[in-house]
């Protein structure tokens, strides 16, 4: 993940949160790692949210395959107060929108569609960048290439 694209992603999420009048907008990868989020995260366990979302999408994906579908690209969970809208972006990341009755499913769907297109473009650029870097081996130094055994040991020193 690079600084420039990371900022773009955060900007997109912020716009989506405002435009859809939702509480939280959240981006997770398919393995349950949180990428970015925007909104009032107080009292929300972001890590658990990310992991459960990915689990949910993975299970639904499995269901889709069972009945011969490629994927279910949108999941919607309706609660008494809050609702969750989950959608797949570029088949690789998961966009989560949490909203209450100040918004509506229709508005969220509309705004998510627009934001998804933006995110897709950003991820395309990201992908190209990382491929280009892989091509020009040596120019990109991983900060972990020089990680020492002591560094690793120090993590477990407690």
């Amino acid at each position, binding site marked *: *993940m*690079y*600084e420039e694209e*990371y*900022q773009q992603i955060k900007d997109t999420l912020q716009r989506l949160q405002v435009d859809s009048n939702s509480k939280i907008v959240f981006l997770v*990868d*398919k*393995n*349950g*790692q949180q*990428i970015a989020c925007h909104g009032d995260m107080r009292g929300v*366990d972001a*890590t*658990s949210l990310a*992991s*459960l979302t990915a*689990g949910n999408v*993975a*299970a639904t*994906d*499995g269901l889709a395959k069972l009945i011969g579908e490629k994927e279910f690209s949108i999941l919607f969970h309706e609660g008494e107060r809050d609702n969750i809208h989950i959608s797949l972006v570029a088949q690789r990341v998961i966009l989560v929108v949490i909203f209450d009755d100040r918004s509506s499913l229709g508005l969220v769907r509309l705004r998510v569609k627009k934001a998804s297109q933006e995110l897709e473009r950003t991820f395309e650029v990201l992908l190209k960048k990382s491929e280009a870097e892989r091509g020009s081996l040596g120019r990109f130094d*991983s*900060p*972990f*290439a*020089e*990680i020492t055994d002591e*560094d*690793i040991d*120090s*993590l*477990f020193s407690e």
Partner: protein
Amino acid sequence: MTFINYAAREINCKIVYYGPGLCGKTTNLQWIYDKTNPQAKGKLISLATETDRTLFFDFLPLDLGTVRGFKTRFHLYTVPGQVFYDASRKLILKGVDGVVFVADSQEARMEANIESLQNLEKNLKEQGYELKAVPYALQFNKRDLPTALAPDDMYRQLNFKGEPTFEAVAMNGTGVFDTLKAVAKLVLTELKKK
């Protein structure tokens, strides 16, 4: 796949506890959760049945500290061990960085251990991984039981590639952190190679 966020300076690694039903995967996570200080851990999530059998997965996020300015975070998952939950197990192995195989030391469970290990190898392969290449640690759990097989016997039957192996009693924490440390080290060492 290790997720490295250069912008937020975070590394996230996924470790999966695998093994036959009732071997103590969840108990491992429970012990780690109980003994870790509150700042370093998130919530332990257990998706279990009413009888406390794991239905989908348990999940525990763990912050280990900083390596080279990067916050190191491990996501620990368990799989449901019961044979018929195979579809769920496959899902959880997606994006795995390291595996701990928890074997049940009781003689009567040896066959289940072997079957589960074969299942692990097969499911990893389906996700495009080779157990030979994945950071991997082996744990012989329930060493305190009178019916426990000799560790040498177990090693002969379960050793896959000379992986670090630990004797454990997950109920009282024996060997739990040793196993976790071993696999975490392997994962970070793997990162160094990339």
